[in-house]
Structure formats: C-alpha cells, structure tokens
C-alpha cells in the first residue's frame, strides 16, 4: 500500500504530577494516500492524541510516526511535515489568527515565505475550494460556526498539504454547519485527492468513508469498510458510540430472527432493506 502516514509501535503517555497515563501503547496504523478515513471513538479514547502525533505537534515516547517516510522526530523535517499534514481542530474560534477572512487564510503561505503573488493565488483557490470566496473581505467574528470552520480548513488548504487531519471539526456546530463542513471535506478528497483523516464520534459522518477505524482505550477495535465496521454492533457499543437509528433498527430486527444485512447507515438503504421484508408479507 502507498501509505502517506505510518505509525510504527507508537507509545504515548501524558505525565502529570500524580500519575502517568498511557494513551497509546504499541500502536501501529497505516493510512493510504488519497483515501478518506474516519476514526471513531468516545472522548478520551486517544483519538486527539493520534491527531497531534501525525504532524509532530507532540512526539511519541517510543516508536515512530512517518509522514511520507519522514520521521516526526527529525527536527530538520519539521516544516516539511507540517506542510504535508495539516491539522484542523474542534473550536473554530481558537484557530483563526486574523480578523479578516482572506488575511487569515494567508497566514500559512506567508509563514512559508511564498511570494505575494503565489500567496494570493493559493488563498483564492483555498477560499473557492471551501466555498468561502465571497466572504473573503468579511470580518471572521461575524461568520457562523460552520463558516468559521471552513475558513480554518481554507487556512490549512492554502498550504497545499497532501493530507488533512480533522479533530472533531463538527462537534461544536449546528446541523447546518455540520453538513457544510462535511460536504467541504468530502469535496476536497474527491476533487483535490487530499488524504483525509476525520476524527469524530458521529457515526453518520463515516457513511461515505473509504475506511472506518474504531478506537477504544488507545487500541483499534474495528477497522474496515463502513458496512463491515457498522455490522459489528457489539464492538461499536463497547467503544461508547451511538448506533444511528437506522443501523439500530436493522440490528434489532436481526436479533428477532429476520434476515437483513447489517452495516447500513443511510435512510434510503434502510428503507430498501425493510421493504424487502415487508414485500414478503401479503399487505
């Protein structure tokens, strides 16, 4: 597999005065270039740590994290790695540096020392890719949550990374903002072929992923295509996640002895699946 990010036996622990707690232990994972990956887990399952390890924001205690073959421990590669893997965080308010949309998006390219012309081109492209171009001269604090988060994403895209890691980017948004951000992420993967790692606890957001990884207590407890992973309802419940009502309905029907296929999330497919059962009845 052509992997962009590789975790090799990574161990990470937080040290506080009272105790040290291992968040990840001998953790290994490979992410394939160009794919859309969703990492699911409850709060404290180690998924935020994972995000910060991917671009060297925090360093592993033992083991290594490789980005395009470059180790995040290698200080000389620090900028190269951050240019390759961009991070988007949960609270959009706390990642916007400037009061004006386009000036904020320009922050990354400016730091890279690009020429003003190139910065301008990248900023415009990034704003168009996130559909925020018409807001380019607006004050950032007047935007809605979803719009702010899209500006934050544009700020990362302007650095033209190969991979974007998003740590619960929709947790603080309303349904509309959530949809906006999710559509933007999907589009970036499809149209720009950017590798996506979306970390979330909303299972619905994993519906269109190429690969879903469930994490619990710093370990991967399920890994595969969405339909394969969602069929493992026990693992999902154990990981402290909520089954979408559609998946829940089908799994409960299955428990009652009806033959339905598991791993379904979308309402349309759920309707189809139940229809198959109802069609067998004479009604």
């Amino acid at each position, binding site marked *: 597999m052509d992997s962009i990010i590789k975790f090799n036996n990574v161990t990470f622990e937080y040290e506080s005065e009272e105790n040290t707690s291992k968040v990840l232990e001998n953790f290994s994972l490979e992410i394939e270039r160009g794919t859309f990956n969703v990492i699911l887990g409850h709060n404290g399952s180690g998924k935020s740590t994972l995000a910060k390890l991917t671009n060297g924001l925090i360093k592993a205690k033992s083991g290594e994290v490789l980005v395009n073959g470059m180790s995040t421990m290698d200080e000389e590669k620090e900028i190269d790695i951050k240019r390759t893997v961009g991070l988007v965080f949960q609270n959009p308010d706390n990642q916007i540096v400037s009061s004006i949309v386009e000036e904020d998006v320009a922050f990354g390219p400016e730091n890279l020392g690009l020429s003003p012309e190139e910065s301008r081109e990248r900023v415009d492209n990034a704003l168009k890719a996130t559909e925020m171009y018409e807001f380019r001269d607006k004050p950032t*604090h007047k935007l809605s949550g979803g719009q702010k988060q899209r500006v934050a994403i544009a700020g990362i895209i302007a650095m033209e990374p190969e991979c974007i890691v998003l740590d619960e980017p929709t947790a603080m948004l309303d349904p509309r903002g959530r949809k906006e951000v999710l559509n933007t992420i999907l589009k970036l993967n499809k149209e720009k072929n950017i590798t996506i790692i979306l970390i979330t606890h909303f299972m619905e957001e994993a519906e269109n992923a190429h690969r879903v990884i469930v994490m619990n207590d710093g370990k991967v407890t399920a890994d595969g295509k969405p339909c394969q992973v969602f069929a493992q309802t026990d693992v999902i419940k154990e990981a402290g996640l909520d089954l979408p009502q559609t998946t829940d309905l089908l799994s409960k029907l299955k428990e009652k002895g009806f033959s339905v296929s598991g791993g379904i999330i979308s309402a349309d497919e759920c309707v189809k699946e139940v229809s198959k059962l109802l069609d067998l009845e004479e009604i």
Partner: protein
Amino acid sequence: MLKDITFGQYFPSNSVVHKLDARVKLVLLVLQIVTIFICKNFVSLGIIALFTLVVLFFTKIPIKLYFKSIKVIIPIIIFTAILNVFYIKTGVVLLSFWKITIWSDGITKAIFMAARVLILILISSVLTYTTTPNDLTDGIERLLKPLKFIGLGQAVHTMSMMMTIALRFIPTLIEETDKIMSAQKARGADLESGGIVQKVKALLPILIPLLISSVRRAYELAEAMECRCYNGGKGRIRMKRLKMALKDYISVLLCVVVLGFIIVANNLF
C-alpha cells in the same frame, strides 16, 4: 450593551480612503492630531472640521456608524466640558446663582474643547474603520522597521503579531463576557448592588472564567499557529504589499495644505 462598541472595528468598502496605504494613513493621522491641537480659534477648528467631514464622506461608510463610535465617549466629553465651564473665570459673567458663577470664556472653552475631542475621535475612527487590522499592524510594523538597526526587529514583529491577535479576539472575548455574565446572573449573582468591595468581589465569578478561557484559547491558538508553520515570523512574507500610489501622495499633499490653512487662520483671526 458591550456589543454596541464599534470603535476599533473595520467596515469593508471600496472607497479611496480604504485603498490608501496603511503607512500613509498612520502618518496622516498623526499629522491630523497635531493639526487639531494647534488650532487656536473657531475658524481654524472649522476648517479642520470641514475637512474631516469631507474625509468621512469619502470613506463611503454610513455617517451613523461614526456617530455610534462617538456615543460611547460622549459622557467623557460632557464631563470635561463641565469642568471647563466651572473652572474658567474670565470674560463676562453670564449667570450667577447660589455659589456657582458661569463665565463666557468657560462656555467658549468648553465648546471648543468638546469640538476638538469630537473631531479627534472621528478622524481616528476613519483609520480603524477603513484599514483592516492586519494592514494596520502591518503598517505599524513597516513604519517601525528602522528599529531593526538598533536590534529591535524581532520585538517589532512580536508586537505587531500581538496586536493582530488582540484585535481578532476582542469581539470573541466581549461575546464571552456577555455570556458568562448572563450565566452567573442566572445563578443568582448580584452584579449591581453593594459597596465597592462587594462589587469587586462580585466580579470574580466573571473574571476568573474569562481568564481561564483566555489561557485555554491562547494555548489552542498557539498549536494552530504552529500547524500553519509559524516560527516567530522568520522569513515571513506578507501577501498584501503596501505600495505608495498617486492617491497616497495627493492625500499627503492635501493634509499639508490643510495644515497650512490652519496656521494662516490661527494668525489671521
């Protein structure tokens, strides 16, 4: 409400004032402030007032917004005006009752001072209303660039970065203060009554959460900035170039001409 403060905000528009070089605007503001303070009589003050109104008009920003910025400062203006009325005891006695005597010079001086402060605020608002915070800090940074010859280059950059971030977070923190105040009021906190000690004590439930959330924000922002390859401004090239154009030279010329008129008016009348 806290949200009504417009002073220091930016209002986008495509006016010629918006397009002026930020450095020029900064230098001209200093020049204008000097001009306002050398005005000696109502004629020269009238000239600068007229000029200011013309500038306001050229910014294409609704005049209402300018007056909104004044609203906050009116109590201070009235206060200084009243002080003037009572403390100046020259000219003709206009009114005398009980222990108070009001002199004509007091009234004149009060009006003069109030007008001066008003013009000052209006012209300062022009700068912040028409210049994006980044342009503004960028302008300051560039104007202070010569300081690098005495080893202060990094300090200048750090200061301008701090200003950018401060300007960016002012609205966020104002909103947050509103929210925390409501939340504590809902928990029965009494923010209005009591003596000074009680009032200061009553502020703690607002200040502590605000401080803690600011620290958290700062920490998260630092991480986000690191992810965007910020390393203290080394090798940073700004996207927007500041370039002096014809309109910049013309505006400098205009302001100098106005200054000339004022000096003449000061001596003639």
